[in-house]
């Protein structure tokens, strides 16, 4: 009985397989690899609403682009390499694929020897990511580390990555790599929000707000959903400003009903039918 069932099922399975092989191969989708740290990484449900800026990034592009977020919590350029997280990206790279490189938070952490990377090594590692991406005809993009939320008493945003951002900028210049100065752009955004309102961009929760954080949270490094989206938006607009094809030709197309501005009297009416 059991084996009869299997033998009957087998031809059906073959037909299913044939149906798939007969179809033309789907058009190649440009891959956008993200390598970096927790500010960018995909988060698990247990830490929601913490959100890495790589998570909403995909919503900015049309269906010809696939974001492959390889960023990992707590990694520096050194540990990312040591754990063999880079070579698989190189091996998978196809001509025209992008690699977005954003490290620094953990490289610069001198009090975390297991992560720390000297500025010299940080520089070397960035150069390795760039040259190996290019050797596969991939397109590297360097990003300075996104800022932390740190204001002085006068409400002015403070730089939190001086040396490692400068190193990133220098590598980009020397190797003529498109650069998104996310450190600067995000500081400008935080300044615009101000000391108080910028809390909404970060993982800031009162005790009891969210079951994942029974003690609340006062995190000035990791983002909320909205903060992550705003950072992704800075990245996309930073690329657009440099006329990078990805951000000019492959942006998401709006639904017809969203393609035009809402009328100003839309105040108290639902706008989604």
């Amino acid at each position, binding site marked *: 009985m059991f*084996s009869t069932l*299997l*033998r009957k*099922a*087998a031809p059906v*399975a*073959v037909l299913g397989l044939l149906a798939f092989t007969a179809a033309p191969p789907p058009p190649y989708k440009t891959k956008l690899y993200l390598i970096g740290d*927790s*500010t960018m990484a995909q988060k698990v449900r*247990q*830490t*929601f*609403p913490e959100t890495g800026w790589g998570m*909403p990034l*995909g*919503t*900015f592009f049309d269906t010809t682009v696939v974001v492959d977020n390889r960023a990992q*919590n*707590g990694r520096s350029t050194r540990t990312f390499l040591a754990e063999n997280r880079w070579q698989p990206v190189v091996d998978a790279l196809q001509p025209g694929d992008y690699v977005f490189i954003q490290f620094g*938070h953990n490289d610069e*952490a001198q009090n*975390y020897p297991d*992560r720390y990377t000297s500025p010299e090594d940080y520089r070397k590692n960035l150069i390795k990511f760039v040259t190996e991406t290019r050797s596969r005809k991939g397109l590297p993009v360097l990003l300075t580390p996104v800022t*932390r939320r740190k204001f002085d008493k006068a409400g002015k945003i403070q730089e939190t990555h001086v040396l490692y951002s400068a190193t990133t900028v220098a590598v980009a210049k020397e190797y003529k790599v498109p650069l998104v100065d996310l450190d600067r752009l995000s500081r400008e955004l935080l300044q615009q929000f101000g000391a108080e309102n910028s809390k*909404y961009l970060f993982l800031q929760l009162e005790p*009891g*707000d*969210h*079951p*994942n*954080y*029974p*003690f609340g*949270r*006062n*995190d000035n*490094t990791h983002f*909320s*959903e*909205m903060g992550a*989206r705003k950072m992704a*938006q800075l990245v*996309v607009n930073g690329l657009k400003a440099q006329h990078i094809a990805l951000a000019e030709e492959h942006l*998401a*197309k*709006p*639904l017809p009903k*969203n*393609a035009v*501005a*809402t009328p*100003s009297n*839309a*105040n*108290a*009416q*639902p*706008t*989604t*039918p």
Partner: protein
Amino acid sequence: MLSRFLSTTAALSLLALLAFRPAAPAKIKVYLIGDSTLSIKEVKAYPETGWGMPFAAFFDETVTVDNRAQNGRSTKSFIAENRWQPVLSELHEGDYVFIQFGHNDEVPTKRSYTPEVDFTANLKRFVSETRSHKGLPVLLTPVARRKFDDAGKIEETHATYAELVRAVARDTNTPLIDLDRSSQALLQQFGVENSKLLFNHLAPGEHPNYPDGREDNTHFNELGARRMAELVLADMRALKLGLIDHLRQGAVKKTVDPQAR
């Protein structure tokens, strides 16, 4: 050769299936029925977010949130499109049904318009039919729109229909989450300007899904949706719903690691 390979493969996949089948503990389902303010959004609408989306992240693995809310639906059109009956036929004892309508019921110019008497009757129907299947209904007043008067005071946008929900809850002894009231209080706390941070407000060029920008005072962004879900959670705790025994037990440490973890 080929057919032997296939038989082996089939046998293996059958084994794999069997291995997964047993030991599934009885899960509690939480059905959400309602409109666009809580529904799941497609990627094309992002960052618009329904509050049912972050709501699902509150619970441990014994609970499944099944968000059946639909953009633009009133109690009338939800029933007419046969969206209620399927929930009912799947309901098991101890499942919850969260009911939040009003936005599309209360607008006389909309096709979805539901006169007050019918709105009340439909809510009562949701409640009684849920109970007849040994499910647990929870009524919610419609979440507030962002509307302030010139003095910066939040204005009621659902006065009549929210009151009808409260009345049904009283008459039927159903747990009530007065989301209209609590969300108005939250919006008042944020104030005229800052409350925009809770809604789908976008400047032109902010997101390609809305190239000319957006000024939506009904639908939430991610932050607003989560804050509304948090209001619902706070009321669930106040009501001591059995469901709160199934919240995630946050394992996140008390202290914040300043490093990018």
